[in-house]
């Protein structure tokens, strides 16, 4: 009897420790979520308080639909520092930019990468090992190292400040992951069907489009989601290669710091929204994500 109680107490203690750790990891995000509903007077309160007195959606309107703001709403409680520090325009076009660039780059890198992944998965050819390792090792390079020469190249191609330029660069970032993840998924597709297609006079293209891809669809979706995870948050290249019109979401997040202060409320609102896609993706692919993050490091 006593032993049982001791064990139960141990379990409860363990859960308290785990809950404390997980809440302390999630706490900053909770704070951000709450700040997006606070008025400036509340988030500049000393000492600070986690919960706002009442939830105001003013900052969300400010960030996404400034035209919907009723001037009478700008009472002293909501607008305080905001007006004096200026306001960032609606971020909806920037979300559009992010979506265009991500869709374009994920599509393109899947189109390019699937062929290479198929080759690495199905053929043993001269240098196949080395090529695979080399493709993966490009991930090790700090991106800033190639930022300078790329800036030059992009200028010569007149691609700075365009969506296409950033799409090309993101394809470069995503390719190693696409290839290694897809290779893993292709390896799991049995070869027997393909061989019979080949014997019947079908081409390799038939194999890929009629046999392998339909079977590996879940894998392709996981890979695409992982690519979104990689580039949705990319800041360095985005800040170097975009201008004010083609800026993506992470770049916009650096704009809220203005001369006379930081627009905390509006910024928090945008950050909360920018978190949603990644939150969804993480829920969907908890397990597969490890596979991507540690792609190919262990064979």
């Amino acid at each position: 009897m006593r032993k049982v109680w001791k064990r139960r107490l141990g379990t409860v203690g363990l859960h308290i420790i785990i809950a404390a750790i997980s809440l302390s990891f999630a706490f900053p995000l909770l704070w951000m979520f709450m700040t997006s509903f606070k008025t400036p007077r509340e988030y500049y309160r000393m000492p600070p308080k986690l919960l706002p007195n009442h939830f105001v959606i003013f900052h969300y309107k400010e960030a996404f639909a400034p035209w919907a703001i009723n001037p009478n709403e700008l009472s002293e409680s909501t607008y305080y520092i905001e007006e004096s520090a200026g306001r960032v325009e609606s971020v909806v076009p920037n979300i559009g930019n992010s979506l265009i660039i991500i869709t374009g780059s994920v599509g393109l890198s899947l189109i390019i990468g699937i062929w290479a992944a198929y080759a690495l998965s199905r053929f043993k050819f001269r240098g196949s090992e080395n090529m695979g390792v080399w493709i993966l090792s490009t991930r090790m390079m700090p991106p800033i190292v190639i930022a300078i020469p790329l800036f030059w190249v992009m200028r010569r191609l007149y691609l700075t400040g365009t969506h296409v330029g950033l799409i090309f660069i993101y394809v470069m970032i995503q390719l190693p992951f696409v290839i290694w993840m897809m290779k893993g998924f292709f390896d799991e597709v049995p070869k027997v069907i393909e061989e019979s297609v080949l014997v019947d006079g079908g081409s390799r293209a038939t194999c890929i489009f009629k046999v392998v891809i339909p079977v590996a669809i879940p894998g392709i979706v996981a890979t695409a989601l992982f690519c979104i995870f990689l580039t949705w948050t990319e800041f360095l290249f985005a800040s170097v290669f975009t201008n004010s019109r083609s800026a993506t979401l992470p770049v916009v997040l650096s704009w809220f710091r203005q001369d006379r202060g930081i627009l905390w409320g509006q910024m928090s609102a945008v950050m909360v929204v920018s978190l949603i896609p990644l939150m969804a993706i993480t829920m969907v692919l908890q397990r597969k994500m490890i596979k991507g993050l540690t792609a190919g490091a262990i064979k």
Partner: protein
Amino acid sequence: MQYYPIKMENSMLSVVSRKGYLKKKAAPYMYMAPTMIWLLFFIVYPLIFALVMAFKRFKLQRGLSFWGMPWVGFDNFITAFTDPYFLLSLYKTFLILFIAVSVEFGLGMLIAHLLNKKNVKADFLWMVLILSPMMLPLIASGNLWRMLFDVRWGAVNAVIMFFGFKPIDFLGTTKWALPAVIIVEIWQWTPFVVITMLAGLRSIPEEPKEAALVDGASKWQMFRHIIMPLMKGQILIVLLIRSMDVFKTFDIVYALTFGGPGQSTTVATFYLYRQAFTQFKLGYGAALSWIIFIIVYFISFVILKVFKTEEAVV
């Protein structure tokens, strides 16, 4: 009827027709070509370009033209190794590397162990909570912690004052700015260590653990001699990826401190960014890029050598 295995027929076909044989040989290279061209153009070409540029000096009055830059020999590299600010920034980077990676490693291992206990309920919920920092864009986490670290109305100082200490101006003093960056690094990347380690822990078979228990091994002995060797792969991944990513610590510094106050949080990549994109010393920046590039490759080489695992292929 004689039955031939399919593989056999296939290879016979290719021997019979010479054209088919060539086609079969060339196919994988054709499939690899787009990827290779892409990576050569966007990674290898810029790297070589940077190497050439490292021996030149950028002159603003001649515009942004490659041939307008005069050759300066090894000047840029000599300047780099005598530039106290660059050496300082390298020192800061290594400081972050050692402190952040070791704390992340220890903490991540501990949390993974707790989550791996058999009597843990609702582990999905805890995982989502612990993984949540990973979902935040790095630039946003810099912004967020700037808010939390504020000396007057930040949450961190509220906690510190709650325990009766004096508030700390994390971002305004040279003494505390670097620890602040390290704290954010740890917060952001421990989840990655947890998720990898947990995957490793769950893949360990039961038999060696039971055998050790029968032989009367203590918990520490079990951890040291059974679990650690079996998780060599995961440990390698964590060390390798994290130490490479410390050299990508750019967004956090950019949003949190912008390298200040003074030079106190200017890490190597941020120093490079400043030299190249705000002071337009493009030649010097290219030289710094190559130095950083070589350091990163050297570190990963050392880690791989230390582990000496044949199966690791990064």
